[in-house]
């Protein structure tokens, strides 16, 4: 079979389809060697015929297979060649997609909502324009009392109305209409009449939480707030409670979280004051609860390393488009 090997070599040396076609014709074309040999088989003796015919048939088959194989090899590399001609510079910039952006406060709010929803908290909202009663009196902050001085308030020309200084009124409104157990968060915009600077503005977003049940305790609060802060900051946080004062809770505390700069004040909290339960229509003897409040602007500033709170209300697209 050196014949066959020689032919195979020849076939595989074809560098393009045209050349291959020529080689095919040389052997199996109308005037091809093998074809001619096959046709002239009739001239041979019976014995010679019996020997030569299968040989030639098998040769023909081998040649055809080899040519097919070589042909498909050439086709794919030929296609490859063509494709390689269609080169693009892949390091040039891609087309800018027209992206929309959610405000960083929206993103923080959504994350916080998710965390509390997964803990079984309902999200409740209330008016920004509030009455004095819901914003102060119901929360154990009576008129002409020094504790009112803690909040600098925006008053409307209609003196009974003000821009709420915290979202605590929402808790009262909710308790008035629902029986315990209560598990809610009340997020929203709040207002303070103070000079704006890099860390304070006349408006910001607050989130308050409230859990009321038969025997809600400080220990329960610790567990819940630990869970919340860990999920928010994505790791096991180290917290501490220390004594503080707010008229609507007793005991009252500040919760600090440990960070790279040491202990940072995160939120105010405490056990709901009996006077607040009374204002909401609950009998304080039967119920215990905790409440807490945290500033979302501050969380956004911490998480995204924003250095000036006023950027959040500036409408500056160079800032907003980064989120």
């Amino acid at each position: 079979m050196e014949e066959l090997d020689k032919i195979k070599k020849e076939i595989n040396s074809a560098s393009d389809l045209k050349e291959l076609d020529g080689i095919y014709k040389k052997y199996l074309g109308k005037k091809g060697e093998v074809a001619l040999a096959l046709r002239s088989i009739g001239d041979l003796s019976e014995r010679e015929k019996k020997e030569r015919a299968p040989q030639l048939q098998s040769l023909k088959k081998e040649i055809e297979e080899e040519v097919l194989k070589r042909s498909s090899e050439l086709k794919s590399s030929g296609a490859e060649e063509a494709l390689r001609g269609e080169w693009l510079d892949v390091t040039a910039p891609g087309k800018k997609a027209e992206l929309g952006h959610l405000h960083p406060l929206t993103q923080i709010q959504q994350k916080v909502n998710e965390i509390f929803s997964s803990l079984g908290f309902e999200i409740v909202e209330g008016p920004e324009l509030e009455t004095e009663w819901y914003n102060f009196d119901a929360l154990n902050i009576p008129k002409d009392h020094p504790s009112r001085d803690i909040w600098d308030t925006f008053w409307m020309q209609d003196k009974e109305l003000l821009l709420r200084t915290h979202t605590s009124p929402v808790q009262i409104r909710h308790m008035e209409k629902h029986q315990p157990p209560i598990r809610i968060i009340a997020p929203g915009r709040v207002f303070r009449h103070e000079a704006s600077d890099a860390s304070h503005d006349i408006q910001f977003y607050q989130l308050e939480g409230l859990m009321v049940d038969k025997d809600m305790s400080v220990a329960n609060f610790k567990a819940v707030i630990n869970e919340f802060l860990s999920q928010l900051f994505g790791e096991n946080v180290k917290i501490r409670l220390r004594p503080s004062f707010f008229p609507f809770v007793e005991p009252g505390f500040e919760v600090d979280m440990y960070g790279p700069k040491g202990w940072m004040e995160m939120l105010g909290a405490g056990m709901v004051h009996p006077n607040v339960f009374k204002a909401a229509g609950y009998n304080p003897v039967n119920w215990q609860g905790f409440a807490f409040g945290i500033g979302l602007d501050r969380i956004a500033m911490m998480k995204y390393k924003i250095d000036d709170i006023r950027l959040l209300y500036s409408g500056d697209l160079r800032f907003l488009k980064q989120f």
Partner: protein
Amino acid sequence: MKFSYNWLQSFFSESLPEPEKLAELLTMHSFEVEEVEKKDEDHILAIDILPNRAHDCLSHLGVAKEIAALTDSKLKNPSPGLARLGRESKKLLQVDIQDKSLCPRYTAYVVEGVKIADSPEWIKERLASMNQKPISNIVDITNYIMWELGQPLHAFDFDKINGANMNIRLAKQGEKLETLDGAAHDLGADAIIIEDESRIIDLAGIKGGANTQIDSSTKTIIFQAAIFDAARIRKAAQKLGIKTDAAVRYMHGFDQNLPPQALERAIELLRETNPKVKIVQKIDIYPSPQKSKKIAIDTRYVNSLLGTDISKKKMKQILEKLGFGLTSLTGGFKIKDLGFKFTVAVPAYRLDIDAAQDVIEEIGRIYGYENIKPIAPQGTLAVPRRNEQVFWRSRARDILSGFGFSEVYNYSMIPKSQEEDYAFPLLELTNPISDEFQYLRPWLMHGVLKNIASNKKYFEAIKLFEIGRVFFQEGEDIIEEENFIFALTGKENAANGFYEVKGYADEFLKKLGINDFYFDPTFSEEDEKYHGLLLHPARRAIIRADNNFVGFVGEVHPDILSKFGVEGKVYCAEFNFDKISAAAEEEHIYQKPSKYPEVVRDIAVLVPRGTMVVEALNAINSVSGPLLRDIDLFDMFEGENLPEGMKNLAFHLIFQSDKKTLTSQEVDEIMSKITKVLEENLWEVR
């Protein structure tokens, strides 16, 4: 308030923990220590005394008592034994109080044989640590006592008091006083004053009068230690704009047992420079002594609220360290007598303890909140109800950011200057922070226009959206609503801009499942009043669903844009989001596509320019029947090749049946009906 470490140490014989360590203890159990600063031989602790402890802890003794409870150290009492009176007590001074509510306790010593001199060094040092300038022995003592005990003291030169007579009353409108610092004050009707026979000599509780001040010739003095009505002091200090350290203490009130203790201490100190002074008169007007308080405590409630298992022995320990006396209900002192219930006697100097939860805080904070182990709350597994407004708001935001808009948050207030852009009254703040924040916003549009104006420097094409509360007055009612706005700019061809914002408005509503709405170019009188001034009069529409206002869309009025300094055009759509979220639908109903082919026919009609597309659509729909699935306006133009004042509208009409393949003939029949009705309107069909 700033505290001297050495001064605090002076209350104890044992050494206190190092300043930093002490600061940590106080922060964790009493008040936050913001800073510990070394100052010469001393350390100054800046302690943030909580508002509800201002009545007892704005003094070194007060904080020393806290420290005693925290360190188990015993307090030395800075108050001496009884001072000795002079040979005989004389009646030199007459004090009258008009209304005992103004001054619940008035205590004073008249002291003879005074020699004005410098205070001893150690007193000067202590005052220096409080940043108080030393003046003379008498004046320094009054300040010293305030910092040490929390009782403000005032000293009068007895000989300057006309008629040896003092009357305490409220000031009358128009009365004046020149105070020690040389400032003249117009006293108001809330100020408590002391007058002698002929003039006012003291703005009680706030500042002394210049006319009776101590000077180098003073020989006889009155040391005054009193309790004045807290609410009035607070009001007067606010009105007059003078908030002295004395006033701050009076505003919060304090232990009514303090005045005589303060006077005793003052005499003790005075004897250092003036060993021979004589107290010749002691005055104490105290008609209604402070009542002691008793509170019933149940140990089970304490542990329930804190989530702890503190033994009653431990509770007793803590409370006794804090100066609370415990008794069982039957009066015994033994632990086993206490059972679950006991009574505490509140120390006189704690005005903040009124009820059980106040006592529980005392137990909890001294026990240490760090010792409370977190316990996950037990409760029924109830899936919280979804807040619909929050849900739709989130959806709406996703839709707009999907369209390529960026979200902004603006202030809820708008400038005074914008009042004229509205034809209805705005809600005004009594105490705005400035003119820029005078009114509450009735629409979101102004905030967004302000944003566009400032972003124009950096961006050509701007797409913004905002969702937030707006406020306005409707008759007697004050309304607060949630609105949603999106706006775009950068499209100079007005038609492109308008139809783009309209397209977004259309898709926005549909994506929220609202399909039943239309764009109404007709503005009623009320529409004009509330929305008219903001939009270009010929390029605006009200969006109505169920015939109710749901929002508006349009090109912003050029006058408004020029006010904001915005060049070019701005297109916006603003919605009442409360109405949108009420109408929004989440459910989709799958419509099976027909298996029979569509037949599309085009039709063009020449109409006068003022004819609205909706008129042609209505005409076509009136005769076409259900087989006309969709009408798609694919071209709208005027210009050359068309007659003057006319425009060409071209539609794809898409016919389809669910039941069979439509024949050409069937479609032709409908087309000729359509052609007929269009021609009846005097429009030329092409």
